[in-house]
Protein backbone atom coordinates (compact mmCIF):
# COMPACT_ATOMS: atom_id res chain seq x y z
CA UNK A 1 0.00 0.00 0.00
CA UNK A 2 2.86 2.39 0.78
CA UNK A 3 4.22 1.72 -2.72
CA UNK A 4 0.90 2.84 -4.19
CA UNK A 5 0.86 5.97 -2.03
CA UNK A 6 4.49 6.78 -2.90
CA UNK A 7 3.75 6.38 -6.63
CA UNK A 8 0.72 8.69 -6.31
CA UNK A 9 2.81 11.37 -4.59
CA UNK A 10 5.60 10.86 -7.14
CA UNK A 11 3.12 11.37 -9.98
CA UNK A 12 1.67 14.44 -8.26
CA UNK A 13 5.11 16.04 -7.80
CA UNK A 14 6.04 15.18 -11.38
CA UNK A 15 2.82 16.77 -12.64
CA UNK A 16 3.35 19.88 -10.50
CA UNK A 17 6.83 20.23 -12.02
CA UNK A 18 5.40 19.99 -15.54
CA UNK A 19 2.76 22.63 -14.82
CA UNK A 20 5.12 25.07 -13.03
CA UNK A 21 7.66 24.80 -15.84
CA UNK A 22 4.75 25.13 -18.38
CA UNK A 23 5.83 21.95 -20.16
CA UNK A 24 2.14 20.96 -20.04
CA UNK A 25 1.56 23.74 -22.59
CA UNK A 26 2.21 22.50 -26.16
CA UNK A 27 2.88 26.07 -27.38
CA UNK A 28 5.75 26.34 -24.87
CA UNK A 29 7.28 23.08 -26.14
CA UNK A 30 6.89 24.14 -29.78
CA UNK A 31 8.55 27.46 -28.83
CA UNK A 32 11.62 25.43 -27.86
CA UNK A 33 11.52 23.12 -30.89
CA UNK A 34 11.18 26.05 -33.32
CA UNK A 35 14.75 27.19 -33.83
CA UNK A 36 14.12 29.54 -36.71
CA UNK A 37 13.67 33.17 -35.81
CA UNK A 38 12.28 33.38 -32.28
CA UNK A 39 13.40 30.80 -29.75
CA UNK A 40 12.29 29.93 -26.20
CA UNK A 41 15.13 28.02 -24.45
CA UNK A 42 13.00 27.18 -21.37
CA UNK A 43 12.70 23.43 -22.06
CA UNK A 44 16.49 23.05 -21.89
CA UNK A 45 16.42 24.62 -18.42
CA UNK A 46 13.66 22.23 -17.31
CA UNK A 47 15.77 19.28 -18.40
CA UNK A 48 18.90 20.74 -16.79
CA UNK A 49 17.07 21.22 -13.47
CA UNK A 50 15.61 17.72 -13.55
CA UNK A 51 18.90 16.06 -14.59
CA UNK A 52 20.87 17.93 -11.91
CA UNK A 53 18.55 16.72 -9.15
CA UNK A 54 18.11 13.15 -10.41
CA UNK A 55 21.82 12.65 -11.14
CA UNK A 56 22.40 13.23 -7.41
CA UNK A 57 19.23 11.44 -6.23
CA UNK A 58 19.96 8.38 -8.39
CA UNK A 59 23.41 7.92 -6.87
CA UNK A 60 22.21 8.73 -3.35
CA UNK A 61 19.55 5.98 -3.55
CA UNK A 62 22.09 3.42 -4.78
CA UNK A 63 24.02 3.71 -1.52
CA UNK A 64 21.38 1.25 -0.31
CA UNK A 65 21.25 -2.25 -1.75
CA UNK A 66 17.50 -1.99 -2.30
CA UNK A 67 14.83 0.71 -2.52
CA UNK A 68 13.01 1.61 0.69
CA UNK A 69 9.65 0.01 -0.18
CA UNK A 70 10.64 -2.84 -2.53
CA UNK A 71 13.22 -5.59 -3.02
CA UNK A 72 15.14 -4.48 -6.10
CA UNK A 73 16.06 -1.49 -8.23
CA UNK A 74 14.48 -2.22 -11.63
CA UNK A 75 16.10 -0.83 -14.75
CA UNK A 76 16.31 -1.64 -18.46
CA UNK A 77 19.02 -4.20 -19.13
CA UNK A 78 19.36 -3.14 -22.75
CA UNK A 79 22.73 -1.63 -23.64
CA UNK A 80 22.83 -1.92 -27.42
CA UNK A 81 22.15 1.03 -29.65
CA UNK A 82 20.11 -0.56 -32.43
CA UNK A 83 17.84 0.39 -35.32
CA UNK A 84 14.73 0.04 -33.14
CA UNK A 85 16.04 2.66 -30.68
CA UNK A 86 16.80 5.09 -33.50
CA UNK A 87 13.64 4.55 -35.54
CA UNK A 88 11.47 4.73 -32.42
CA UNK A 89 13.12 7.99 -31.35
CA UNK A 90 12.64 9.46 -34.84
CA UNK A 91 8.92 8.57 -34.80
CA UNK A 92 8.51 9.91 -31.28
CA UNK A 93 10.18 13.21 -32.24
CA UNK A 94 7.86 13.47 -35.26
CA UNK A 95 4.73 13.13 -33.12
CA UNK A 96 6.17 15.39 -30.41
CA UNK A 97 6.96 18.13 -32.95
CA UNK A 98 3.53 17.87 -34.62
CA UNK A 99 1.42 18.32 -31.46
CA UNK A 100 3.87 19.63 -28.85
CA UNK A 101 2.83 16.81 -26.51
CA UNK A 102 4.81 13.92 -25.05
CA UNK A 103 3.42 11.29 -22.62
CA UNK A 104 3.83 13.13 -19.26
CA UNK A 105 2.37 16.47 -20.38
CA UNK A 106 -0.38 14.62 -22.31
CA UNK A 107 -1.58 12.89 -19.12
CA UNK A 108 -1.36 16.09 -17.02
CA UNK A 109 -3.19 18.19 -19.60
CA UNK A 110 -5.93 15.55 -19.92
CA UNK A 111 -7.28 17.28 -16.81
CA UNK A 112 -7.43 20.68 -18.53
CA UNK A 113 -10.56 19.70 -20.48
CA UNK A 114 -9.47 19.97 -24.14
CA UNK A 115 -10.95 16.95 -25.97
CA UNK A 116 -8.10 16.93 -28.51
CA UNK A 117 -5.79 15.78 -25.69
CA UNK A 118 -8.14 12.87 -24.98
CA UNK A 119 -7.94 11.88 -28.66
CA UNK A 120 -4.14 12.15 -28.49
CA UNK A 121 -4.15 9.94 -25.35
CA UNK A 122 -6.42 7.32 -26.94
CA UNK A 123 -4.23 7.16 -30.06
CA UNK A 124 -1.04 7.04 -27.96
CA UNK A 125 -2.40 4.13 -25.90
CA UNK A 126 -3.43 2.35 -29.11
CA UNK A 127 0.12 2.79 -30.46
CA UNK A 128 1.63 1.48 -27.22
CA UNK A 129 -0.73 -1.53 -27.24
CA UNK A 130 -0.03 -2.26 -30.91
CA UNK A 131 3.76 -2.41 -30.48
CA UNK A 132 3.43 -4.59 -27.36
CA UNK A 133 1.09 -6.94 -29.23
CA UNK A 134 3.57 -7.29 -32.11
CA UNK A 135 6.53 -7.77 -29.77
CA UNK A 136 4.59 -10.33 -27.73
CA UNK A 137 3.75 -12.31 -30.90
CA UNK A 138 7.34 -12.20 -32.13
CA UNK A 139 8.64 -13.46 -28.79
CA UNK A 140 5.98 -16.12 -28.35
Amino acid at each position, binding site marked *: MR*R*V*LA*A*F*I*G*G*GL*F*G*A*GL*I*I*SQMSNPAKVIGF*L*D*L*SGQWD*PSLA*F*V*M*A*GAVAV*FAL*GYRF*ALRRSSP*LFDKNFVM*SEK*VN*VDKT*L*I*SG*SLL*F*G*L*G*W*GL*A*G*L*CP*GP*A*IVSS*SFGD*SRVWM*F*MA*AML*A*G*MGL*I*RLIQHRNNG
Partner: protein
Amino acid sequence: MTIVNFTPVSALIGGALIGLAATAMWWLLGRIAGVSGILGNAIGARGIDLMWRVAFIAGLLSAGAIATIAFPESVHFTMDVGYAGAVIAGLLVGIGTSLSGGCTSGHGVCGVSRLSARSLIATGTFMASGFLTVYVARHLL
Protein backbone atom coordinates in the same frame (compact mmCIF):
# COMPACT_ATOMS: atom_id res chain seq x y z
CA MET B 1 17.77 34.38 -33.70
CA THR B 2 15.97 36.27 -30.95
CA ILE B 3 15.03 34.82 -27.55
CA VAL B 4 11.31 35.07 -26.68
CA ASN B 5 9.01 33.93 -23.83
CA PHE B 6 12.03 32.65 -21.88
CA THR B 7 11.11 31.67 -18.29
CA PRO B 8 14.36 30.37 -16.77
CA VAL B 9 13.33 30.53 -13.09
CA SER B 10 10.04 28.62 -13.36
CA ALA B 11 11.75 26.22 -15.78
CA LEU B 12 14.51 25.42 -13.27
CA ILE B 13 12.08 25.14 -10.33
CA GLY B 14 9.68 22.92 -12.29
CA GLY B 15 12.59 20.87 -13.60
CA ALA B 16 13.98 20.39 -10.08
CA LEU B 17 10.53 19.16 -8.96
CA ILE B 18 10.52 16.63 -11.80
CA GLY B 19 13.99 15.50 -10.68
CA LEU B 20 12.71 15.22 -7.11
CA ALA B 21 9.73 13.13 -8.26
CA ALA B 22 12.10 10.86 -10.21
CA THR B 23 14.31 10.54 -7.12
CA ALA B 24 11.30 9.57 -4.98
CA MET B 25 10.26 6.87 -7.48
CA TRP B 26 13.79 5.47 -7.60
CA TRP B 27 14.63 5.72 -3.89
CA LEU B 28 11.25 4.44 -2.62
CA LEU B 29 10.09 2.03 -5.36
CA GLY B 30 13.28 1.31 -7.26
CA ARG B 31 11.57 2.38 -10.49
CA ILE B 32 12.61 4.76 -13.25
CA ALA B 33 10.10 7.60 -13.63
CA GLY B 34 9.67 7.17 -17.36
CA VAL B 35 6.08 8.09 -18.16
CA SER B 36 5.76 6.16 -21.44
CA GLY B 37 7.04 2.97 -19.75
CA ILE B 38 4.90 3.36 -16.63
CA LEU B 39 1.79 3.91 -18.77
CA GLY B 40 2.56 1.45 -21.57
CA ASN B 41 3.53 -1.39 -19.26
CA ALA B 42 0.32 -0.91 -17.28
CA ILE B 43 -1.30 -2.61 -20.29
CA GLY B 44 -1.64 -6.24 -19.18
CA ALA B 45 -0.11 -5.64 -15.71
CA ARG B 46 -1.75 -7.15 -12.61
CA GLY B 47 -1.78 -6.77 -8.85
CA ILE B 48 0.64 -4.38 -7.17
CA ASP B 49 2.51 -3.83 -10.47
CA LEU B 50 -0.70 -2.47 -11.99
CA MET B 51 -1.63 -0.52 -8.85
CA TRP B 52 1.54 1.58 -8.49
CA ARG B 53 1.43 2.40 -12.22
CA VAL B 54 -2.20 3.54 -11.99
CA ALA B 55 -1.37 5.52 -8.81
CA PHE B 56 1.47 7.37 -10.58
CA ILE B 57 -0.83 8.24 -13.51
CA ALA B 58 -3.55 9.29 -11.05
CA GLY B 59 -0.99 11.61 -9.42
CA LEU B 60 -0.24 13.24 -12.78
CA LEU B 61 -3.97 13.65 -13.50
CA SER B 62 -4.57 15.04 -10.00
CA ALA B 63 -1.83 17.64 -10.43
CA GLY B 64 -3.60 18.83 -13.59
CA ALA B 65 -7.01 18.82 -11.91
CA ILE B 66 -5.82 20.66 -8.77
CA ALA B 67 -4.06 23.30 -10.88
CA THR B 68 -7.19 23.78 -13.01
CA ILE B 69 -9.44 24.24 -9.96
CA ALA B 70 -7.17 25.99 -7.44
CA PHE B 71 -4.71 27.92 -9.63
CA PRO B 72 -6.47 28.47 -12.97
CA GLU B 73 -4.19 31.43 -13.74
CA SER B 74 -1.20 29.03 -13.66
CA VAL B 75 -2.63 26.79 -16.36
CA HIS B 76 -1.70 27.75 -19.91
CA PHE B 77 -2.69 25.47 -22.75
CA THR B 78 -2.44 26.29 -26.43
CA MET B 79 -2.37 23.53 -29.03
CA ASP B 80 -2.30 24.22 -32.75
CA VAL B 81 -3.41 20.87 -34.18
CA GLY B 82 -7.00 19.69 -34.66
CA TYR B 83 -8.47 16.23 -33.97
CA ALA B 84 -6.80 14.54 -36.94
CA GLY B 85 -3.41 16.02 -36.04
CA ALA B 86 -3.84 15.00 -32.40
CA VAL B 87 -4.64 11.39 -33.37
CA ILE B 88 -1.72 11.11 -35.81
CA ALA B 89 0.69 12.67 -33.29
CA GLY B 90 -0.60 10.44 -30.49
CA LEU B 91 -0.13 7.29 -32.58
CA LEU B 92 3.43 8.34 -33.51
CA VAL B 93 4.30 9.11 -29.87
CA GLY B 94 2.82 5.79 -28.66
CA ILE B 95 4.57 3.71 -31.34
CA GLY B 96 7.85 5.65 -31.16
CA THR B 97 8.25 5.57 -27.38
CA SER B 98 7.33 1.87 -27.26
CA LEU B 99 9.98 1.00 -29.86
CA SER B 100 12.70 3.16 -28.32
CA GLY B 101 11.76 2.23 -24.74
CA GLY B 102 11.33 5.73 -23.37
CA CYS B 103 10.32 9.34 -23.85
CA THR B 104 11.40 12.78 -22.61
CA SER B 105 11.27 11.58 -18.98
CA GLY B 106 12.66 8.02 -19.17
CA HIS B 107 15.41 8.68 -21.72
CA GLY B 108 15.62 12.50 -21.57
CA VAL B 109 15.74 13.01 -17.80
CA CYS B 110 16.43 9.67 -16.07
CA GLY B 111 18.66 8.05 -18.70
CA VAL B 112 20.68 11.21 -19.34
CA SER B 113 21.17 11.64 -15.55
CA ARG B 114 22.84 8.25 -15.32
CA LEU B 115 24.72 8.77 -18.61
CA SER B 116 23.15 5.76 -20.35
CA ALA B 117 24.49 5.57 -23.92
CA ARG B 118 21.10 4.38 -25.25
CA SER B 119 19.30 7.27 -23.57
CA LEU B 120 21.82 9.91 -24.69
CA ILE B 121 21.46 8.74 -28.29
CA ALA B 122 17.66 8.42 -28.05
CA THR B 123 17.41 11.96 -26.60
CA GLY B 124 19.64 13.45 -29.28
CA THR B 125 17.61 11.64 -31.95
CA PHE B 126 14.10 12.62 -30.79
CA MET B 127 15.27 16.21 -30.19
CA ALA B 128 16.69 16.41 -33.73
CA SER B 129 13.52 14.83 -35.11
CA GLY B 130 11.38 17.32 -33.13
CA PHE B 131 13.40 20.33 -34.36
CA LEU B 132 13.16 19.11 -37.96
CA THR B 133 9.43 18.34 -37.70
CA VAL B 134 8.62 21.82 -36.36
CA TYR B 135 10.79 23.43 -39.03
CA VAL B 136 9.04 21.54 -41.83
CA ALA B 137 5.52 21.87 -40.36
CA ARG B 138 5.77 25.57 -39.48
CA HIS B 139 8.08 27.01 -42.12
CA LEU B 140 7.99 24.83 -45.22
CA LEU B 141 4.39 23.53 -45.44
